[in-house]
């Protein structure tokens, strides 16, 4: 009898708080989006599952002694995002960007979204009850970088309490890129601009691809050492791939290692979706600002392309500017798709891959500035 009462008092039904129930529903929603809607499933499925597990009463899976508590150290110490960045680096082909380097500027322009969201977060301090510090605003802004590992890395350093909401916002909007970007792209360009065909890209030699990650790292060392953890991991992964002499390491970095870390990272991020941390007005602010950041980033990229078109002798289709937000490779695909609507023979995919990977570099640089200037 005592046992039965003790058992009843140890059930979830007895111990639930309303916040936990709500956060589990958020977890299930993420699973639904990942599985049924195909939203970034590689991250949102583990994140959603982690959210459910960490909100189970009594079990303490995200507390000391529990699985997610220990896995979270991989984020806390900054290991997981950097290892993912290394794997992504090994998967990335800088060829299209090297063939047309001026598209790097599109990747720069799109980072305006980061700082727009940062300023927006600070402006929201007007709203009574909402309070964002500079650190928090910066961590929110980085959602606009449209790059998961960068957002998680910066948030883990500047605002670990907001990590869950920021990661969810970043990956959700990356999944929503095909819905968010096209209307903005169409609104800011004329039919004639969207029809612009671009010159075929030149061939890029293996040597250039080997030297590039080293040049990128060197520049980052000279100008912005605070960005070198991110840039360095990325360049290391890329060099393993392009050098061609350590294929077995490159393959492992791109496959098993990144897969293992992705599982652990997703579950750990989910463990930060606790009721106390997530069920706050702040979260609504973060979600809104994230959307603003993506929209402004997209617009800035497109406008920059239009500006460059005035001064460039070779034509640039402004649609590829939208790919500057990163969200690799989705936003490049979106540029390609919107371009095909206006001109069915105009394949922009390869041209958009340049600004797309430039956007990754751009947001790593912006992250470096934020990490360096905000104490």
């Amino acid at each position, binding site marked *: 009898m005592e046992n039965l009462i003790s058992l009843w008092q140890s059930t979830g039904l007895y111990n639930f708080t309303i916040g936990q129930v709500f956060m589990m529903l958020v977890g299930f929603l993420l699973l639904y989006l990942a*599985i049924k*809607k195909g939203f970034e499933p590689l991250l949102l499925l583990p994140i959603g599952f982690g959210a459910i597990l960490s909100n189970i009463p009594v079990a303490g899976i995200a507390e000391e002694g529990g699985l997610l508590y220990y896995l979270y150290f991989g984020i806390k110490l900054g290991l997981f995002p950097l290892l993912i960045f290394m794997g992504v680096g090994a998967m990335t082909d800088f060829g299209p960007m090297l063939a047309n380097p001026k598209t790097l500027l599109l990747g720069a322009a799109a980072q305006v979204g980061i700082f727009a969201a940062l300023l927006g977060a600070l402006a929201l301090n007007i709203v009574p009850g909402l309070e964002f510090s500079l650190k928090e605003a910066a961590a929110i802004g980085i959602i606009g970088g449209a790059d998961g590992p960068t957002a998680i890395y910066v948030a883990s350093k500047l605002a670990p309490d907001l990590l869950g909401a920021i990661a969810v916002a970043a990956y959700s909007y990356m999944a929503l890129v095909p819905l968010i970007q096209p209307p903005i792209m169409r609104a800011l360009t004329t039919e004639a601009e969207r029809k612009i065909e671009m010159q075929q890209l030149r061939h890029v030699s293996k040597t250039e691809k080997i030297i590039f990650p080293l040049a990128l790292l060197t520049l980052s060392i000279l100008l912005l050492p605070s960005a070198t953890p991110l840039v360095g991991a990325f360049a290391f992964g890329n060099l393993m791939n392009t050098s061609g002499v350590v294929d077995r390491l490159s393959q492992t970095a791109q496959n098993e290692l990144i897969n293992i870390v992705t599982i652990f990272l997703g579950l750990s991020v989910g463990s930060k979706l606790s009721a106390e941390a997530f069920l706050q007005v702040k979260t609504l602010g973060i979600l809104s600002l994230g959307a603003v950041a993506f929209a402004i980033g997209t617009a800035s990229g497109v406008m920059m392309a239009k500006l460059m078109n005035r001064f460039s002798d070779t034509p640039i289709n402004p649609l590829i500017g939208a790919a500057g937000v990163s969200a690799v*490779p989705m936003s490049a695909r979106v540029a390609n798709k919107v371009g095909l609507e206006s001109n069915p023979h105009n394949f922009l995919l390869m041209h958009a891959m340049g600004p797309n990977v430039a956007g990754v570099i751009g947001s790593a640089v912006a992250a470096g500035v934020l990490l360096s200037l905000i104490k």
Partner: protein
Amino acid sequence: MAELMSSGLELTFAGMGIVFLFLTMLVYAINMMSGLIQRYLPEEPATSISIPVAPKNTATDKSYIAAITAAVHQYRSTH
């Protein structure tokens, strides 16, 4: 010793009780779930399923490969 045994017996009754309760409820849950799914989310007969095996619009870091492979392929084929 006697106390220990009585704890053990209590544990056994509670334990087997919960195990049977849990799995019996799971039987009902499965029957309900399968019934609902077969009624409201039936598999389309000949062709494939309602839940896409290949996600339609993923933009994940890790689909880099696929996209870049495709892109590089197209790019190389023009050189």
